[in-house]
């Protein structure tokens, strides 16, 4: 399927041949790709259902080259889509047909590490896990750990404000970075944030983090590093019904315990993971919880004992403490391989990413089950239970005509329900191309207009990642989302059609 971005500059101000010539004057020959076979690896990101060949792909070696490319694109008013490792799940790096795909993959140096000050200055193409590996010998690590951390890069993490399984305790990307260097749409290099905390002026770092390549190009990131906890332990608890598992999560938090990770899986996900990873999960359970505690040894020992009691009292049919590091790793292996494991159950799966106030979990799971029946598509549920981030995996077959459209409609309904119970359409995967219509459900016309005004402050011509992340009011009118906000119907100023 080819996704349609909102059209932007259908007729470019420069021919492709001329653009390539000019790019080759700025970059070495191997940094400019323009033949179809060279471009095809860039036609999609982790959301492979959406594909589009870029006009040209550039892979600069230096920040100066990024600036030069941006100046050239600005001169000819060409759309620019930034790309990190391409592991994103919302089509945020989907190319523009008449635009330049700007890959930051070659900017992959760790520039400096300050072990005493616990910071590292890295280029955007450095892999998330590589940061932790580089500082491990000093007893430090970088906390946010998206499941793609082996491959995903820090530039993309900043663009998406990536999370991971340890968010409840350690926060998102925004909580773990101090400064970024940003190349603007006109090619200017700006330092945003600082090595000191709480920089002077507006919190542009918060604004840029999670902005999905709409406000500028991240070319350097200063991350904060944390000491590796003295100890980490994990408990598995099995439940005969999902509501009991959900209640147990609330009880743990009410007891004043903040787990480092608190994950839930439903029966279909448990069995898929068990087939795949042989983690020793109880196959007959309706839900399992994995609860990890970390910190000082005395704290962990104390809290893990309390957690086991709470889980038993909440009606767990089994509570199992991983006795050693090997069994702890095995319990996590099952959870971390849940996506590929579910992938073996059907030709394709579609991963959703809503967040909800945790108390509504039983209600939302019931709604997902109803929709699953209605659409005739099975769903496996994996849930970052600690922070309310739900990942329903809808199973389907892309080769069956019309089934992808059904899945998209089904997924959209789940996200809309998340908004209805007070949650969000995306916790960590971003809006990208995928959830652009659901933005019309979460935000009203005034709020979307304010977003566009923010965008305009950074990128008046709308050249950066056009058509993503924030829908036009026109698009929302077409989508027909009826978001009644403060008693007003949405988009009263627009005709309905």
């Amino acid at each position: 399927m080819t996704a349609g971005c909102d059209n932007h500059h259908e007729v470019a101000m420069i021919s492709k041949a001329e653009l390539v010539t000019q790019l080759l004057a700025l970059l070495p020959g191997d940094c400019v790709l323009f033949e179809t076979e060279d471009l095809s690896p860039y036609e999609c990101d982790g959301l492979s259902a959406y594909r589009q060949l870029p006009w040209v792909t550039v892979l600069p070696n230096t920040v100066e080259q990024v600036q030069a490319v941006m100046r050239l694109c600005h001169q000819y008013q060409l759309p620019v889509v930034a790309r990190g490792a391409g592991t994103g799940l919302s089509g945020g790096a989907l190319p523009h047909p008449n635009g330049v795909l700007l890959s930051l993959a070659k900017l992959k140096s760790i520039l400096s590490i300050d072990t005493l000050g616990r910071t590292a200055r890295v280029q955007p193409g450095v892999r998330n896990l590589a940061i932790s590996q580089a500082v491990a010998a000093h007893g430090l690590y970088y906390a946010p750990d998206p499941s793609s951390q082996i491959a995903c890069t820090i530039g993309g993490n900043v663009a998406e404000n990536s999370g991971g399984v340890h968010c409840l305790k350690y926060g998102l990307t925004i909580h773990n970075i101090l400064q970024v260097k940003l190349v603007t749409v006109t090619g200017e290099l700006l330092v945003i944030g600082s090595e000191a905390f709480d920089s002077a002026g507006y919190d542009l770092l918060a604004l840029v983090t999670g902005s999905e390549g709409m406000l500028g190009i991240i070319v350097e990131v200063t991350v904060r590093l944390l000491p590796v906890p003295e100890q980490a332990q994990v408990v598995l608890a099995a439940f005969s019904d999902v509501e009991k598992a959900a209640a147990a999560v609330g009880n743990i938090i009410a007891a004043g315990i903040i787990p480092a990770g608190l994950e839930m899986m439903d029966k279909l996900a448990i069995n898929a993971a068990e087939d795949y990873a042989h983690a020793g999960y109880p196959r007959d359970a309706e839900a399992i919880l994995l609860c990890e505690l970390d910190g000082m040894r005395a704290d962990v020992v104390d809290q893990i004992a309390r957690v086991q009691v709470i889980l038993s009292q909440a009606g767990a049919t089994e509570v199992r403490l991983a006795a050693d590091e090997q069994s702890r790793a095995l319990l996590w292996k099952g959870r971390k391989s849940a996506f590929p494991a579910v992938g073996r159950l059907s030709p394709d799966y579609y991963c959703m990413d809503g967040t909800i106030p945790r108390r509504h979990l039983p209600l939302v799971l019931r709604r997902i089950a109803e929709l699953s029946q209605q659409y005739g598509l099975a769903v496996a549920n994996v849930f970052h239970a600690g922070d309310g981030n739900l990942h329903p995996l809808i199973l389907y077959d892309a080769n069956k005509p019309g089934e992808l459209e059904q899945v998209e409609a089904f997924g959209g309904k789940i996200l809309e329900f998340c908004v209805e119970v007070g949650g969000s359409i995306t916790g960590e995967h971003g809006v990208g191309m995928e959830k652009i219509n659901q933005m019309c459900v979460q935000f009203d016309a005034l709020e979307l207009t304010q977003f566009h005004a923010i965008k305009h402050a950074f990128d008046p011509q709308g050249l950066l990642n056009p058509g993503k992340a924030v829908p036009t009011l026109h698009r929302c009118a077409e989508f027909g989302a009826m978001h009644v906000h403060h008693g007003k119907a949405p988009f009263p100023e627009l005709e309905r059609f």
Partner: protein
Amino acid sequence: MALNEQDISAALQQQVALAYADKTPLNICAGNTKAFYGRTATGQTLDVSGHAGIVSYEPTELVLTARAGTPLSDIESALAAHGQMLAFEPPHWGVSATIGGTIACNLSGPRRVYTGSARDFLLGCHMINGKGELLHFGGEVMKNVAGYDAARLMAGAMGTLGVLLDVSLKVLPMPQHKLTLVRSGLSAADALTLMNQLAGQSLPLSASAWIDGNLYLRFSGAASTIASVQHNQPGEVLENDEDFWLSIRELQHPFFASKQPLWCIAMPQVAAQPDVAGDWLIEWGGAQRWLRSDAAAEDIRAQVSVLGGHATLFHGGDKSGAVFQPLTAGIWQLHQRLKKAFDPAGILNPSRMYENL
């Protein structure tokens, strides 16, 4: 509902809309405890203190939503009743301090460097922009990446981009036990090294401060953890330590009682002490340093910025001049454009943060 708990958002919205139409500058006020902070306020008072009350609080969700005029002390009492707290330990600077002013100024206390800032714990807000439009950004969930993070942009914007109506905050359990140890005879440089070394270890540090050769370290956690800290870490136990940390947070420590201008200086944690004559108090593991000095503002800012820091004039000195560190040209241009995007008529707390913003 208590008498002081009411929703006056419609009235506030109307006042801002009128001011927008008339181009009347507004001075957003509630408890008035932060009036000294920033540049001198001008404009017609927009009193949000009547917009008060905790809207929702779910201890098991770790989320509290309160109207901007809610007294900080009310919020802290409500949380304490469930063994929870605002983990950024905000300063009050007066009994009438509100949550709106706290977030608008992005003010955090001793725990900030170990758990996060006011901005870090902000999950969402309702606000009125400079056109009198009521907007909602973020939400009441821990993870939310839909749209730009306009909610966190409000933290520290000092009301220049919008009038905060309510804020949703992540809250945390209160540690059960704490202990403050004092190590004496340390120079500023020694203390900075030690604070950084300790922060790099798996230790439950929750505050640190150095003054007059003494380094104060607070540890918080379960009883067993605190026992192990007391066993393993050197230093004298400080009795009634909460009084000490309160005196720092509330600027009531004798250090702050001086007629000299008071500067709050943010520094990279490992940065050396700036070469400025005056008296110093270091906290936040080296990240925040207080300076009492008669040195010229330009000299202080130059010395600080060369080390990667920024200086804010707190008390004394010229409050009609630059209070916050001047911004680079490119960043300043973005500030002006963002101001225009939220407040096109320039009516919200004009020039409270920077001149002509």
